[in-house]
């Protein structure tokens, strides 16, 4: 048992580092994109709405694996050769961002119309209503689905072995190729993913609690 861990844990931790890099980088990228595209889809201006719609539909509607393959193996033929890690972060971010945009949009849509009308009655500008009245109420509604997306993103990182990155799953495969100890190795890998998901979920729960505490009780 000790020998097994001594042999396999150091490379798996190195793989976990890549998985985390992708998760954190991808999540930051996704957050920015989700807010931009989510607001863009609700915009009255066509030049904002259309790009946001195209982005969301393209990245929700195509396979993440094919996107990765395309960004890594096809883009260099058009003169863009991004490093593997950056490719992984961007594609995972673009993907989760597309789903996240819908979370942002639907949460904003669910803030009662009366809130907008009240804002206007107080002579607030549209932007001010959005940022001071509507978004603070929409934020607590976004967090539970955002937590789901974060876990999804973390598990999707396993796809990047396709593009020469040795993240957790791929490292497990390499170790398995060396020793053929499939069952204990994959059990250990599952455990690592599970613990990682628990850490992420705990973080999200903390965030939810602090947001609702600041905003008072909401249904």
């Amino acid at each position, binding site marked *: 048992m000790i020998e097994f861990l001594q*042999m396999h844990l150091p*490379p798996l931790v190195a793989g976990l*580092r890549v998985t*985390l*890099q992708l998760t*954190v980088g991808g999540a930051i990228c996704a957050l920015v994109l989700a807010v931009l595209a989510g607001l863009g889809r609700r915009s009255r201006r066509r030049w904002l709405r259309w790009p946001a719609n195209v982005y969301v539909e393209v990245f929700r509607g195509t396979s993440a694996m094919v996107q990765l*393959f395309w960004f*890594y*193996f*096809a883009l*260099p*033929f058009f003169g863009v*050769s*991004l*490093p*593997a*890690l*950056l490719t992984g972060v961007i594609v995972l971010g673009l993907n989760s961002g597309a789903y996240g945009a819908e979370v942002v949009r639907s949460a904003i849509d669910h803030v009662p119309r009366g809130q907008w009308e009240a804002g206007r009655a107080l002579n607030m500008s549209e932007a001010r209503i959005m940022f001071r009245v509507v978004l603070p109420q929409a934020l607590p509604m976004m967090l539970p689905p955002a937590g789901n997306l974060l876990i999804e993103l973390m598990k999707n990182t396993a796809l990047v*072995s*396709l*593009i*020469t990155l*040795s993240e957790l799953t*791929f490292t497990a*495969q*390499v*170790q*398995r*190729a*060396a*020793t*053929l100890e*499939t069952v204990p190795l994959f059990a250990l890998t599952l455990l690592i993913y599970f613990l990682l998901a628990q850490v992420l979920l705990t973080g999200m729960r903390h965030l939810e609690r602090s947001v609702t505490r600041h905003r008072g009780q909401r249904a």
Partner: protein
Amino acid sequence: MLRDSALRWTRRTLGVLAAVLLAVWLWPRPGELGAGPGAGGDTLERIRSAGVVRVGFANEAPYAYVDTRTGRLTGEAPELARLIFRQLGVPEIEGVLTEFGSLIPALKAGRFDVIAAGMYITPQRCKEIRFSDPTYAVGEAFMVRAGNPLDLHGYEDLRDTSGATIGVVSGAIQLQYARAVGIPDERIVIFPGAPSAVDGVAAGRASAYAATALTINDLLSRTSAPLERAMPFEDLVLDGKVIKGYGAFGFRKSDEALLEAFNSVLAGTIGTPMHAKIVEPFGFTPDMLPGEVTAASLCEAPAG
């Protein structure tokens, strides 16, 4: 009250500290964001001045794999590549690990400069990339469950045994062999890698795993599952020719100069005692030398 706020302060500080440590650990180290060489330009000149050549491999022992104890890229192809590139004035090789099926697209996209994975020369692959002259030739074998319950001794045997299925690794040549012999697709099981194929046969997902004799021997030496090499084994004959796989290094089509230089050093190396000493630890014996067969002749032949 005081203790409460002190506690909160401690927790917050610890949280920030943990976040900072995590960020430091995750921050990309120099080289991790390297874009790779990128196609185009004179590759030979570039790798000579850099002193390092990037080689793609798929972690398949004994052809090219990472020794998990030392972390060193080793195997028949990387060790031979080290020897040859040293003579070409490139002292170091750096491995880029990827799936077998991604090797050719990654080479073409300039993610590395050479495929050093013991890849077979086939006419289909020749359409995509150029090959060096072969460095070894090896026959086929099956891995089956202990006792060979279905009594399988060759591709034709398997085809004529009702209910028998053949396991192959995705991207590997054995899929073409199986189809050429006439095994229907619904009896071909494609596994993502050699370890999965081993587990697959052990778990009864396929009756036999078809690979080169070398791969099968190597895997059997490491697994503890009740598996064996099907003996005796009838050589696969297609179009009147005994099928052997000829492994070589892969290059981009545009890298003429590099390929030429590589081939000329390779020709002076293959079959020498030095070569034998390098590849012998991986189970490559003198009877597996490729002889007079060249990449050009293998590219022309119809699909095996």
